[in-house]
């Protein structure tokens, strides 16, 4: 019954998504500390155990299934912290989200960006 707009090809993060994606986003939020980043990289699975992740969220994180993370309530700003740990750029993620290589995605941006509607 939310008034949140439904826009094709676009995630609009709302209150219900916050609730659904809470554990996933919370986990990523802890990467603002160097100590936590080390802990995660040292043992990803047991780091995940500290959060109340759904099995789907857990495997999306461990398998770096970026689209699934978003589908399961992840917010791009939290998920990006995980990508940074992997030394992946927003352009890398953009390629994943749009089914392109990173190079193709960068080339489209350099050519003026992607146009819709």
């Amino acid at each position, binding site marked *: 019954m939310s008034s949140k*707009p439904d826009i094709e090809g676009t995630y609009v993060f709302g209150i219900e998504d916050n609730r659904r994606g809470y554990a996933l986003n919370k986990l990523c*939020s802890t990467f603002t500390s160097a100590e936590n980043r080390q802990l995660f990289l040292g043992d990803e699975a047991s780091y995940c155990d500290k959060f109340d992740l759904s099995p789907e969220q857990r495997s999306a994180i461990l398998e770096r299934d970026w689209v699934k993370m978003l589908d399961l309530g992840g917010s791009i700003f939290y998920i990006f912290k995980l990508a940074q740990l992997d030394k992946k750029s927003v352009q890398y993620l953009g390629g994943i*989200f749009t089914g392109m290589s990173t190079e193709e995605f960068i080339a489209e941006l350099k050519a003026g*960006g992607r146009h819709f509607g």
Partner: protein
Amino acid sequence: MAEIIWGLATSHVPSIGAAMDNAKTHDEYWSPLFEGYQPARDWMAQHTPDVVLVIYNDHANAIDLDLMPTFAIGTASHFPVADEGWGPRPVPPVLGHPELATHIVESLVDDEFDITVANQLQVDHGLTVPLSVYTPEPGDSWPCPVIPVLVNVLQYPQPTAKRCYALGQAIGRAIASYPENIKVAIFGTGGMSHQLSGERAGLINESFDHMFLDKIQTDPEELTRITREEYIREAGSEGIELIMWLVMRGAMNPVITRIAETYHVPASNTAAALALFENSENPS
């Protein structure tokens, strides 16, 4: 009486900060953007404020998922630079202006804005990148104290464009009623069109951006009639950050003068713009 002397609208993408931090501003990729900044930087260096208000949003750093304010104002005497996941930016500490910030909060709450008070706050690239756009080489300290004004753009429902403009107008009244004779600059940050995730990732809408860049000066009221849905549809899921420019605009006089402007695609995944406005005298 405090006075707003100018307003700066600028994108705040982290990579603009990173380009400066890593001395890449003369690279082929970045030089068009930074060359575009130069006229505004030269003018601002001649017109220095005593304090700046930066309207921005936090990006999953200082504002917790648990409690997400629509509008928050930082009243602390200093704001540590956040570690956003890759260490804090190598920039000077950000000092606040508790007296003016407290006055603004009290004035806004009296004026029926439901402000969240950030008594303590870490600041992320949303605030520090605009400071770097203003002052690329701050040395050991930023040129003046800063008051952070946070707007929720991350979680629907964001405030309406109309409400952001009204907040700006109320901030303008608050500053005008501050008894000290100080000069204030105000930054509206974020935008332009961009979208980071989903199948529309990489979206750029030049015609919307140019319309917005024009009307932010000449007809901000029209921009307040654009719905949240339309901002997201036209400018992208992150392009809705543009509502923060309306806070800046609302705080300024009805008539403002455009000092400088630049528009560039791409800066990382976004269309980046800068527009600098002098607060013209109000015909009274």
